[in-house]
C-alpha cells in the first residue's frame, strides 16, 4: 500500500506568470520563494514552496504527495505499474525543479496528474506573508473525479487514505491526523477543484471575505481560467473552466 504522509505541493500551468504572481501575492497573500525563468515558486508555511506556477497550459495541474523514503517510492512505482498505471520516474533535473530529492509521476483513475515525492525542501527562514491573510499553511485539495466511488477505492485501497466523512457523494479523505487532505468532487474531467490554505482564525476568513469582496469590483484579477474566492475555513481557488 502506498503510504501518503502529507500533501506537498501543487503545480499549475499558467500562460501569464505575471498575473499569476499578482494574484498569488496581492490577493492570496503567499510569499514569493523564487522566480525561475519559467517557474514561480510560492510559500505558505515552513516549506520551501507549496505552490508553483509554471509557464504553460492552465490545464496542466499536478498535486504532489510526500512519501517516507526512496524505497517507499520504488515500491509505489511497482504497485502502480502492476495496476496498469504508466509511471514516470522523475529525472534529477525535474526533481530539482520540484525542490525534492526524488519523485515519480502518474495519473489517478480520473486522469489527475499526481506526483509522489521524497524529501521536499524546507526553508530555514519562516514564512513571511505578502499580505496579512493569516495563512498558516497549505492544507488540502479538492480533486475532480469522473467516478468518485472508483477513485475513492484507488485512494483508500491502493493508497492509505481513509474516508473521514462524506458530503453527498463527496468523500473527504485523510492521510494523517487532519480531517481531510483530499476531497473528490464529481466533474466531467480531470483537474484540481480547489486549493485550500489554512488560516489562523475565523477572523482571517472574514477579513479575507471583505478583502476579496471589495476587490472583486476593483482590480484583482485571477490567472486565465481560474476564479478564486474566500471560503469558510479556508482560502480556496476554484477552477471553473
Amino acid at each position, binding site marked *: 500500500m502506498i503510504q501518503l504522509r502529507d500533501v506537498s505541493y501543487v503545480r499549475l500551468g499558467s500562460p501569464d506568470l505575471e498575473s499569476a504572481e499578482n494574484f498569488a501575492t496581492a490577493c492570496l497573500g503567499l510569499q514569493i520563494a523564487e522566480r525561475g525563468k519559467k517557474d514561480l515558486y510560492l510559500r505558505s508555511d515552513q516549506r520551501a514552496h507549496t505552490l508553483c506556477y509554471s509557464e504553460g497550459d492552465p490545464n496542466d495541474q499536478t498535486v504532489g504527495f510526500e512519501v517516507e523514503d526512496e524505497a517507499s517510492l520504488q515500491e509505489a512505482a511497482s504497485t502502480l505499474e502492476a495496476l496498469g498505471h504508466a509511471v514516470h520516474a522523475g529525472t534529477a533535473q525535474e526533481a530539482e525543479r520540484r525542490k525534492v530529492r526524488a519523485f515519480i509521476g502518474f495519473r489517478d483513475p480520473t486522469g489527475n496528474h499526481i506526483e509522489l515525492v521524497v524529501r521536499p525542501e524546507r526553508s530555514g527562514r519562516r514564512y513571511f506573508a505578502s499580505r496579512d491573510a493569516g495563512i498558516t499553511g497549505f492544507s488540502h485539495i479538492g480533486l475532480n473525479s469522473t467516478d468518485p466511488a472508483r477513485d475513492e477505492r484507488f485512494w483508500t485501497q491502493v493508497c492509505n487514505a481513509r474516508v473521514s466523512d462524506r458530503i453527498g457523494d463527496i468523500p473527504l479523505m485523510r492521510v494523517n491526523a487532519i480531517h481531510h487532505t483530499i476531497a473528490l468532487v464529481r466533474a466531467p474531467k480531470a483537474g484540481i477543484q480547489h486549493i485550500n490554505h489554512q488560516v489562523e482564525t*475565523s*477572523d482571517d476568513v*472574514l*477579513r479575507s*471575505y*471583505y*478583502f476579496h*469582496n471589495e476587490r472583486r469590483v476593483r482590480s484583482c484579477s485571477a490567472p486565465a481560467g481560474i476564479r478564486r474566492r474566500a471560503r469558510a475555513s479556508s482560502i480556496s481557488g476554484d477552477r471553473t473552466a
Partner: protein
Amino acid sequence: MHHRIALYPSKRNGLLYAAFEVEALDQIMQNSYFMQESQIRIVQGPGREAASRQMFLHVEGPDGLIFSYVNGMAEIDGKPRLARQFPLNAASLCDWGSESKDVPELRAPGR
C-alpha cells in the same frame, strides 16, 4: 463585560441598537444568511469591533431601531487599566472590514 452602554455622537436622541448575545460565530453567520434570505436589511456585519473584540450583526428592525446579534465581547479582568484610545476609522469600527452604508452613527468620517 467590556461595555454595557455605548454613547454615539448623534443629531437625534433615542436608542441606536439593542444587542442580543448568541452562542458563537456560527449563529452570527446563520443569522446573517437568514436575514439576507428573508430580505431584512443588514445595517452592518457580520463584523468584529476592534476594541471590545465583540462580533456583531446589525439588522434593521421596525421604526428604524437596530437589533444586533453579538458574541465574544472581551471581559475586563478587574485589574485597573486606562481606557485605550482608538481612532474613529473603519478599522476600529470593524476589524474584518464590514461597513455601515447609511447609519451615520456607525460610520467613520470620510467614508
